[in-house]
């Protein structure tokens, strides 16, 4: 399926019908503060969306499920089972009986309707703040093709999430990762791309060569990754739509890896190993303009830009062990930001700019953690035999990473966790998975 062919349009179709917002009652407005870490998820009711055309019933049910799974999957929301409903939503246009939803303690009510004309799909929804007895925001309508039905569900869920949390959504997004099969000593790896929730897996390379650490471009259209297809690690760029790839220029006798885009989508930073020494370089994706940003005899790798493109966070063992440093985007003096016990690697700057996610190794365990960009307020979110390689959701509120189990049957898989350390969840993939990279929100 080619998602890129999907056209989505948004119409403010239903706002006028509820032009006079009801006053909030005893309860405050429907709201979740994500940063506080939610212990008690917000209960919502989501009656199966109405089928407005005869053949829309199947898609209406499936889209409703996607919306519900997206919201529940955050750990911030809890779906009230339909068996508990007192009133049914027989029509999208009918007035809501708030008392019936209040009685089952639904704080949010989401209603929707789906219509199909040929291969054209239209989905509209409304969000109600039950305790305020008012609609929260205007109704919205999304149109597209039937094959993009999952995206329509993600769009609805993003809008609901966004209205209740005040944060950007992240459900209409994709993840590129390394799909893994085979035993630890004969592992086969290939690039794969999927929806953020593990649906619609497509393979982008075959498994004839080891591939490592794909990274999305800022617009989500291209992927940088490292492949051993020449026998030596080298950086490639792949166009997601056409699945065409090309090797980037490299210097003979060197190895290049750990690439990442700058926010401009043109500059990349990467590691280059030469004579046993690994430093960070930058170059233009089209070739040329290569510049060496570090020149220490130590290992400098895993560079990641700040969202404004002015700084780079990276790891170095110049102090004797792996630690995190920040330097200007053009190179120059670096300041160390990690000082706790253990080793720190794979730093990734949050898309919001406020935090840096990292892998920490201490006392034989691995952790995914976050810290502020000055190194303060370090918080470990996970602990296991081997966790590594965090990537940020587009809204900077959730992190996906690789977890590998130990021993002879050791297997890699993807997990996500929110930045408060709650809601640790496996992300289901058909085979093993590692090195996830989360796209921006799709357009």
């Amino acid at each position, binding site marked *: 399926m080619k998602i890129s062919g999907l056209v989505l349009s948004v119409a403010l179709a239903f706002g006028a019908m509820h032009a006079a917002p009801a006053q909030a009652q005893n309860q405050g407005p429907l709201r979740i503060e994500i940063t506080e870490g939610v212990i008690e998820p917000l209960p919502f009711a989501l009656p199966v969306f109405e089928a407005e055309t005869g053949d829309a019933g199947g898609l209406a049910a499936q889209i409703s499920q996607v919306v519900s799974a997206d919201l529940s999957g955050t750990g911030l929301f809890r779906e009230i089972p339909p068996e508990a409903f007192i009133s049914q939503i027989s029509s999208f246009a009918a007035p809501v009986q708030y008392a019936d939803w209040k009685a089952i303690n639904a704080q949010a009510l989401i209603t929707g309707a789906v219509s199909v004309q040929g291969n054209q799909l239209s989905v509209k929804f409304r969000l109600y703040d039950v305790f305020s007895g008012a609609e929260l925001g205007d109704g919205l309508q999304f149109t597209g093709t039937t094959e993009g039905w999952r995206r329509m569900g993600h769009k609805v869920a993003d809008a609901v999430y966004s209205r209740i949390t005040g944060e950007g959504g992240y459900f209409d997004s994709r993840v590129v990762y390394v799909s893994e099969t085979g035993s630890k*000593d004969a592992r086969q790896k290939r690039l794969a791309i999927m929806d953020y929730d593990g649906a619609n897996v497509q393979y982008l390379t075959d498994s004839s060569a080891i591939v490592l650490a794909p990274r999305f471009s800022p617009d989500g259209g291209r992927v940088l990754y490292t492949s051993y297809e*020449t026998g030596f690690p080298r950086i490639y760029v792949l166009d997601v739509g056409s699945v065409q790839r090309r090797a980037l*220029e490299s210097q*003979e006798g060197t190895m290049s*890896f750990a690439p990442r885009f700058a926010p401009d989508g043109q500059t990349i930073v990467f*590691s280059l190993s030469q004579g046993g020494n690994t430093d960070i370089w930058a170059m233009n994706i089209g070739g040329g303009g290569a*510049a060496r940003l570090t020149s220490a005899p130590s290992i400098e*790798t895993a560079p990641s830009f700040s969202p404004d493109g002015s700084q780079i966070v990276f790891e170095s063992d110049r102090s004797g062990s792996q630690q995190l440093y920040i330097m200007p985007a053009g190179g120059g003096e670096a300041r160390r930001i990690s000082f706790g016990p253990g080793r720190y690697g794979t730093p990734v700057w949050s898309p919001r700019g406020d935090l840096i996610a990292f892998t920490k190794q201490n006392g034989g365990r691995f952790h995914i953690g976050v810290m502020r960009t000055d190194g303060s307020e370090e918080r470990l979110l996970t602990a296991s035999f081997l966790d*590594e390689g965090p990537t940020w959701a587009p809204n900077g509120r959730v992190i996906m990473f690789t977890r590998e189990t130990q021993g002879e049957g050791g297997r890699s898989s993807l997990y996500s966790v929110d930045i408060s350390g709650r809601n640790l969840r496996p992300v289901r993939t058909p085979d093993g998975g590692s090195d996830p990279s989360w796209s921006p929100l799709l357009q």
Partner: protein
Amino acid sequence: MTLRTKLIFVVAGLALAACTNPDRFGADGTAGGLGGANGAVVPGSPNDPTSPAYFNQTIGDRVLFAVDQSTITDEGRTVLDGQATWLLTNTDFTAVIEGHADEQGTREYNVALGARRANAVREYLVSKGVAGNRLRTVSYGKERPIEICSNESCYAKNRRAVTVLAAGLTG
């Protein structure tokens, strides 16, 4: 400083197809032919000093490293002295030196660490007179362990640099 903007097209066969170690990522290849009866040397066997099997098994194709280190140990020096002597005698062969790390580290760091290890071996062989243009290095990081348990007995064998012979000179 700028990168030379020159594209390289490395023939995969250099590193892969032409390798002479029967099982580069497996056990140490003890399946090689044994010496013939009464001490006669079977050509190509580990008893034939001109054979890659002799290099791989009798001399030893690999050296091991301490945790997070790339220093050649005394034991490693003995192996590499043998490798250097063999390479100086058998000048038709080139080699790719593969650096590896155990699984206790992040992926990128381990690629860089493997590069250090491979380069340490290369520099040692060059210091013993082997021409630098016969020796390339590659790092696999933690991607190709030969032992798969998650304890030190396996990790110790995975922290290695392996000299993989290939016929013919590199460019």
